[in-house]
């Protein structure tokens, strides 16, 4: 369940509207508060002025009535004091007052006991108005000792004119109707200034009461009048009228405010008080009624005075609250509607963010911030779309390249020898190699092959990595194969490669190469180094093969490369590698280094490990060193171990002939006798005879071109399994193995000299080998005889 707070927080429109409405509420509050305060003040002042005016008017009217009574009394009392010698005239005077003032109720002219000795203890001339009929009587008697009455005694004791406290008469016919009477009493004095009695004029307070009660400045306001004893002489509540004083209820439940009002009124003060009268908050305006000692008050309920104001305030507040709510509602709606595109945008952006890049954003025609935002989003989406397309394209391209690279890698790997051991039938040579490219395709190469009892091998490292390097590597590999097909001198082979690579090397790439040609029958190694690391020789210990540095291939087209030579002894392992080995790096960018390589190889040399074991041992060592670090360069290694076998001779014969074709029959006999000794069949014997004759005739014809007399020696050896025939001469160096195969499609006449001969030799014999040693050409031909 969301709290209202959360409900508002979740919506910008609600938040915004609430802020606006709150702000408006504050402004309204301040403005209305000021207005209300001012109006309240004005209403209050108006009420005070109004009530005070009414009170003043009322008091004035009532006082003028009371004044009339006083004047009437004053107009009579001097007559009384002038006619004290005629007591009966008092009846006339008392009667005349009533006759002259029909609204007066009665008049007593009363004297001290025994004042008129002849009239006894009581003499009070009393007239009263009985519904227009004026009755006159002497009122004093034993039951009514008037001289103890308040009206009589008050004037006497105070020695001044005075109004009595109002009192009331009952009308027994009406059971409970009552009329209030008040008397104006004035002491009578004789000529000597001695008190002789009291003249008292009664007046019904009916009119006064009505006049005061009628003062009603507000619908629920009412007037009261209290006497000197606090008694209510005018009050709308009959329970209180005459029965209670203003203090009565404060005796039961103390009410200091009402008590204070009562005292103020009794003290003849004039003013206004705010207090609670009979449970109603009221404004009470009070004023004394002349010299009577009575006090009149108007009680105005606050709700009356401020009724209109409160009503207005309620309406205004209602309008404001409704207005604010409406405002909130309308603002919410307007802002929601204004923000609708934003919501839509948010939703659609969400959708886009989830990957639906094709989601169409609505085109907004507005020019405000939201419109701009919309345009920006559309622009962003377009850019994003474009970017994604490009990315997809690139990714696809990359994938395609990757797949091509995979193919290239496969091709590259397939170009290199993959089958190990490569020469399982041979006991004199064991070889193992591998290449571990840093990327899909490598820039390293290695290769080897056997030709005419010679092992051609190469290891190289193209500058750079990746595809370009692989390309150059492929080129180099192909050139190696091509160049070494008919050439056995490493320097020449490298030179050929270099000459081909250099002119087209626009990308300034180069390749370091170590190329070796090992003559298997003799263990004689010819090699040429083109800027590559020197191979290591493992022969009990680890030594470096002495190499001239030379420049790598691909730098100088006319670079002269030099062939070096050495002989491998039995059991020697030649270890070739690229810089991916010694420069292999671990995570701390520390290189593996030659020292570690040498250390690794020492046990291999001591234990006379085979090439495969050596390589695996080295790889393990490198892996331990590199750990998880990414391979930084291609790593290629090649190891070959030379173990020539013993030839167990059962037949060894030789024949030396001068280079004279006439001696050829001797050669034939020699071969036939050998064949006979070895028990060879006739066709084989004939073929071997033909091959040897071709080789020897070739020497006889071409070895000594300057006419110099020369010799040719033919050695025949057999171990029972094969027949080895070695043709030795000291003539011009000539390597028949270099000759390309004879083109047998040509006519006999068109064939070059000797070309067919060596073709025959190759065809007949199982293997041939040429070596030039000590300025002698040594051609070895081998035929398996069993």
């Amino acid at each position, binding site marked *: 369940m969301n709290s209202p707070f959360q409900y508002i927080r979740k919506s910008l429109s609600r938040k915004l509207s609430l802020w606006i409405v709150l702000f408006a509420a504050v402004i309204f509050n301040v403005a209305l508060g000021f207005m209300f305060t001012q109006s309240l003040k004005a209403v209050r002042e108006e009420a005070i002025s109004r009530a005070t005016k009414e009170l003043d008017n009322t008091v004035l009217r009532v006082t003028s009535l009371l004044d009339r009574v006083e004047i009437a009394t004053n107009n009579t009392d001097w007559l009384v004091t002038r006619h004290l010698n005629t007591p009966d005239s008092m009846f006339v005077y008392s009667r005349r007052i009533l006759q002259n003032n029909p609204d007066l109720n009665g008049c007593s002219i009363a004297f001290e006991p025994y004042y008129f000795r002849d009239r006894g203890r009581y003499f009070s001339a009393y007239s009263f108005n009985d519904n227009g009929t004026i009755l006159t009587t002497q009122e004093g008697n034993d039951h*009514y000792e008037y001289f103890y009455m*308040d009206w009589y*005694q008050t004037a*006497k004791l*105070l020695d001044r004119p005075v109004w009595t*406290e109002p009192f009331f008469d009952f009308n027994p*016919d009406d059971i409970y109707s009552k009329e209030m009477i008040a008397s104006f009493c004035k002491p009578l004095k004789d000529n000597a200034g001695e008190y002789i009695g009291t003249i008292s004029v009664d007046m019904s307070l009916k009119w006064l009461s009505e006049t005061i009660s009628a003062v009603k400045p507000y619908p629920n306001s009412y007037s009261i009048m209290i006497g*000197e004893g606090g008694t209510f002489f005018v009050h709308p509540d009959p329970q209180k009228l005459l*029965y209670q004083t203003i203090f*009565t209820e404060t005796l039961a439940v103390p009410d200091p405010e009402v008590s204070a009002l009562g005292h103020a009124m009794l003290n003849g003060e004039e003013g206004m008080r705010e207090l609670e009268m009979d449970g109603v908050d009221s404004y009470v305006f009070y004023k004394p009624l002349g010299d009577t000692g009575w006090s009149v008050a108007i009680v105005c309920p606050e709700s009356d005075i401020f009724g209109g104001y409160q009503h207005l305030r309620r309406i205004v507040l209602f309008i404001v609250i409704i207005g604010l709510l409406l405002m909130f509602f309308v603002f919410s709606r307007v802002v929601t509607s204004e923000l609708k595109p934003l919501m839509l945008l948010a939703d659609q952006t969400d959708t886009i963010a989830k990957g639906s890049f094709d989601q169409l954003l609505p085109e907004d025609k507005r020019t405000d911030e939201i419109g701009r935002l919309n345009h920006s989003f559309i622009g962003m989406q377009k850019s994003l779309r474009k970017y994604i397309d490009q990315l997809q394209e690139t990714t696809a391209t990359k994938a395609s390249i990757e797949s091509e690279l995979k193919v290239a890698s496969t091709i590259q790997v397939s170009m290199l020898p993959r089958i190990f051991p490569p020469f399982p039938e041979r006991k004199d040579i064991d070889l193992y190699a591998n290449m571990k490219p840093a990327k899909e395709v490598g820039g390293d190469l290695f290769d080897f092959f056997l030709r005419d009892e010679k092992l051609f091998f190469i290891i190289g490292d193209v500058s750079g990595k990746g595809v370009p390097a692989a390309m150059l590597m492929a080129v180099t590999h192909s050139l190696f194969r091509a160049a070494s097909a008919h050439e056995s001198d490493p320097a020449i082979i490298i030179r050929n490669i270099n000459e081909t690579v250099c002119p087209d090397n626009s990308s300034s790439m180069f390749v370091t190469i170590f190329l070796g040609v090992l003559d298997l029958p003799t263990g004689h190694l010819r090699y040429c180094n083109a800027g590559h690391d020197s191979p290591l020789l493992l022969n009990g210990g680890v030594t470096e093969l002495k190499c001239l540095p030379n420049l790598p291939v691909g730098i100088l087209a006319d670079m002269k490369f030099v062939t070096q030579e050495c002989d491998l002894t039995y059991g020697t392992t030649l270890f070739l590698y690229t810089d991916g080995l010694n420069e292999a790096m671990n995570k701390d960018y520390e290189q593996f280094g030659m020292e570690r390589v040498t250390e690794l190889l020492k046990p291999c040399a001591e234990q006379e490990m085979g090439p495969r074991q050596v390589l695996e041992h080295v790889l393990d060592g490198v892996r331990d060193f590199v750990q998880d670090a990414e391979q930084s360069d291609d790593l290629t290694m090649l190891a070959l171990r030379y173990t020539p076998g013993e030839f167990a001779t059962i037949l060894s014969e030789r024949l030396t002939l001068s280079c004279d074709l006439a001696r050829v029959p001797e050669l034939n006999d020699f071969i036939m006798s050998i064949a006979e000794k070895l028990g060879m069949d006739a066709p084989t014997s004939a073929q071997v005879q033909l091959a040897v004759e071709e080789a020897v005739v070739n020497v006889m014809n071409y070895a000594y071109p300057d006419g110099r007399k020369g010799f040719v020696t033919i050695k025949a050896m057999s171990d029972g399994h094969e027949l080895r025939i070695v043709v030795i001469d000291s003539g011009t160096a000539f390597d028949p193995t270099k000759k390309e195969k004879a083109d047998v499609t040509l006519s006999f006449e068109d064939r070059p000299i000797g070309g067919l001969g060596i073709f025959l030799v190759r065809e007949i014999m199982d293997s041939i080998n040429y070596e030039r040693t000590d300025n002698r050409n040594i051609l070895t031909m081998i035929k398996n005889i069993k």
Partner: protein
Amino acid sequence: MSYARIPRCFKDHPLKPFFVKKLILFVLFFSAAAVAMAQERFVFTPQWTAQAQFAGYYVAQEQGFYRDAGLEVEIVHPSLTQSAMSRIRRNESQATTLQLCQAMEIIDSGIPMVNILQTSMNNAMVIVSRRGVDPLTQKGARVGIWSAGFGQLAICMSIKDGLDYEWIRFANNVNLFIKGAIDATLAMSYNEYYQLVQAGYEVTDTNVYRFCDHGYNVQEDGVYMTREYYNKHKEQARKFAEASRRGWEWAAEHPEETLDIVMKYVEENHIATNRVMQDLMLKDILRLQTDRESGEREFRLRPDMVKMASDLMVEYMMIDKEVTYEQLTEE
């Protein structure tokens, strides 16, 4: 509407103003009926207008205690022309209430009276002076006194303490004092005293003198009948006293209901008072009924108080000779 003007002589009378014609009819009725019904009916007239001062009798009437006692009691308040004592003298009423000193005065004047029930155990009279003025310092001051004839003790005290008050007789209210026409006034603690309070008058320990606290604690209200009547109707008197006492005891236990009954009488008699005043009066009357020493409602005359009152009144010549406890009681 015939609005009857009441002769002026009635206006300020303490008693309820009655219309003359009605009054005559009333008197005629009683004159004729009184003789015929005297045997059956018992008229009780309290000495003042209807107020809580007589609550016990109203209660006894309203709760049927009189009826239970086999009495047919009628409570008739005194009228303008007939004070309670004048009714007693004419045998129009059989019993009334009197203050002890009043009763002594009456006996001393030659009308033997018998106290058949004493309700008050304490004196309620006070002198109230203007604010801040101690009544005892106002030598020769004009002091209001009831024209109806209470205040014997005050007169004794004024002489005894050498205060020489000038007594101004007033009819029934405190208007003279309020108007400032007199310096001080006598008041009953349950009536005029509260009228002054109700008029906003400030009463303090300084300006109020309580007789009960200055060696004048003389019992006040009791129910009296003439000895002549009493001697013939002892059983009736006993029953009335018994039922009245029961009424007072009930009133003490049920002040709120009692107040309701009082207000009923007040309203019937159009007395210009109110419930608040009657409540205060009832409480004070009940307080006065408890003897200070025993702390109980004893309903008896105390011989010591009788003696004290009699001695004082004799000494200050309020009465000619001693009125004894025995004279007041059944003898």
